[in-house]
């Protein structure tokens, strides 16, 4: 099964409530995916330049003095904000590659969830309400965000198997369905030098889109070509720095509902996830067509 939610704000006055609305949507989708949950949130903090979200199973030990150590190695300012098992390193965007390298040296066991100008990803094993509470999702603000509740089919129930998956700066993907050609596609992408962390099918989907965009495709073109190159069932919701996109496979048996008002575009696996959004009664509500790419940008 799995549940997907997403919210793209057009009205800036709603930005402080993004986390609140998104966590409510996420918790509503608990019975579609009770084993793990995650969100990607695109922040609106103009002071911040770049950020890397990291995760550790032993945060007390691994996050201690990490900012100072990395700052010393890279010679750039680094600040650290800890949230439970995750932490966000605030860095200059230009120093992201150097910080990643330094992180690998000083804390090889720490995992990178996402990197980019505005993206932060938080995901863990457990009920969506517990995951949302653990990271204080309801207090987060931002321009858009996507969330996922997982009922695992293709790989183990682990933090790294939870969605969203990020395989490029400010990019992320959540998925409801199962890809059947992920093993062969993973091998092909790895041969092209694409880094894929897990044995999970969705990560291959994310890496595929990142690879296509690195080759010069737009998000829309990358999603179009996924319809030819990916085999299996999928409803994808993809986040980029500027917006989000939706695509469903041609059979389209994985559910999807969208709603649009002057204030936002919202996505839910089911209408239930959207019922508490402001003005939903007057929203244009529709089911995205199979094999059709939709995307919205700021």
């Amino acid at each position, binding site marked *: 099964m799995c549940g997907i939610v997403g919210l793209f704000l057009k009205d800036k006055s709603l930005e402080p409530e993004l986390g609140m609305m998104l966590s409510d949507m996420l918790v509503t989708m608990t019975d579609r995916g009770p084993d793990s949950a995650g969100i990607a949130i695109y922040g609106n903090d103009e002071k911040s330049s770049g950020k890397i979200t990291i995760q550790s199973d032993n945060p007390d030990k691994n996050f201690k003095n990490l900012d100072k150590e990395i700052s010393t190695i890279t010679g750039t300012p680094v600040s650290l904000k800890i949230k439970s098992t995750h932490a966000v390193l605030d860095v200059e965007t230009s120093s992201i590659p150097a910080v990643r390298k330094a992180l690998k040296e000083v804390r090889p066991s720490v995992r990178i969830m996402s990197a980019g100008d505005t993206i932060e990803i938080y995901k863990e094993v457990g009920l969506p309400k517990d995951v949302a509470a653990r990271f204080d999702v309801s207090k987060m603000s931002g321009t858009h965000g996507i969330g996922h509740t997982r009922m695992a089919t293709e790989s183990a129930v682990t933090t790294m198997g939870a969605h969203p998956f990020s395989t490029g700066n400010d990019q992320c993907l959540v998925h409801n369905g199962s890809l059947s050609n992920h093993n062969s596609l993973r091998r092909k992408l790895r041969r092209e030098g694409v880094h894929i962390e897990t044995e999970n099918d969705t990560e291959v989907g994310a890496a595929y889109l990142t690879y296509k965009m690195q080759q010069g495709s737009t998000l829309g073109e990358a999603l179009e070509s996924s319809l030819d190159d990916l085999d299996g069932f999928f409803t994808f919701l993809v986040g980029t720095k500027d917006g989000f996109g939706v695509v469903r496979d041609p059979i*389209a048996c994985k*559910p999807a509902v969208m709603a649009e008002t002057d204030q936002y575009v919202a996505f839910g696996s*089911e*209408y*239930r996830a959207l*019922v508490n959004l402001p003005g939903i009664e007057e929203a244009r*509500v529709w089911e995205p067509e199979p094999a059709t790419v939709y995307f919205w940008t700021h």
Partner: protein
Amino acid sequence: MQTFDLEAQGLRELNSTLHAQVKETNQTSWEVINPKGSHAIAVGLDAPIEVNIKGSTGYYCGGMNKQATINVLGSAGPGTAENMMSGKIVIDGDASQYAGATGHGGLLVIKGNASSRCGISMKGINIVVHGNIGHMSAFMAQSGNLVVCGDAGDALGDSCYEARLFVRGSVKSLGADCEEKEMRPEHLEILKELLAEADSDAKPEEFKRYGSARNLYNFDVDNAAAY
């Protein structure tokens, strides 16, 4: 009129209350408020009652319905009116995938559009859609009538048996062993009645009829590619 607040009283309470209504009940009119896309609303009813659901519903609304009239004043999720036996279900908005699947009888009216697989494996139900229907509709449809006032998506009536499919607009593509058929007076009569019952002002003469070419009924090695 009995009013039931689904959010306050819960789904099990609603369905068991509606199940407790029998043929002789005096409480024939029910209103359900705050459905909020919940699943399995008014499933398994078997009494001549009317249920008005004020808002949108989730999966399987009105499933297995017998005798009851159910009006959804909103849109409906996947599997609406699945395996309906008799009665009438009217969706004011759109219906998601496999509306009316496997239905044996009764009338399902969708005033907006229906998504993919509408009427899949229908076995006697009548379905009238005021708008369009999605791909793979009436797949393996066995009997009953599917009336589409708008357009039909890909692979209409794939591997269908004896269901009658009427489409007023365009058909993106026909499925395996589905073909256009002659519209005879008795078909116009069926259409006239169904359109009237479904509150549609479409004219029977505007429709085309589709159905099984009956080439896949028995195994024929020349058709191996189509099986």
